[in-house]
């Protein structure tokens, strides 16, 4: 079992900082893409060393139907 953590900071002005931890390789980017769809537009992005580590065998499942009125 792999532990996937996300830390989200929503500033007073509404700007959002998302830090994905534990998910390696492409899985990490799957979370980033998904949360971008949910929240808004990317202003800045930084890959950390964990991104370059070998990813888990199973790809994460983030299939969803994003509904704007949720």
């Amino acid at each position, binding site marked *: 079992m*792999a532990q996937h953590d996300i*830390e989200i900071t*929503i500033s007073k002005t509404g700007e959002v900082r998302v830090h994905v931890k*534990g998910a390696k390789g492409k899985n990490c980017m799957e979370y980033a893409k998904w949360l971008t769809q*949910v*929240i808004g537009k990317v202003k800045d992005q*930084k890959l950390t060393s*964990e991104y370059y580590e070998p990813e888990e065998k199973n790809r994460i499942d983030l299939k969803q139907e994003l509904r704007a009125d949720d």
Partner: protein
Amino acid sequence: MGVVIVLTPVVIGSWPVIAAAVTAAAAGLGLNVSEKVKEALQEEQQTNEQQVEVQLEDSQVLADSVASGKELVLTKDNITLKVTRDARGECKICASGQGYTQAELKQIAEQFSQKVSQCFIYNRTITELKRHNFQTVDEDVTEDGTIRVHVRRWED
């Protein structure tokens, strides 16, 4: 470790969803809320009352029957904030009040607009995270009003 992204929020939702964020923002800033049908509002503007309008940035209120002709009215002391959907579908905040300058009202409207964005994004993000089986590990609000949420899920 992993990836860090910084995002600018886009506020898109139906009137009830926007109204929920407006209500939460109002509660956070100590404003009283009442939802009224615009046509029913026949209050005459005081001649010495200042008025300022600001747009909620990157916002879109989806057209539906509920949104038509409605507005949220928020009050505190001598200030009134009216939240409406304009003809282009954007969310508009109008601040008015006696004894305030245009600059003061603009600042109040912008502060409220930012709070609405924050509440909207919080509601939307938490809903999506829960839908994907994330559990909240920790959550707090810092002194400067920043919301911090830590969520976790386990993958096979």
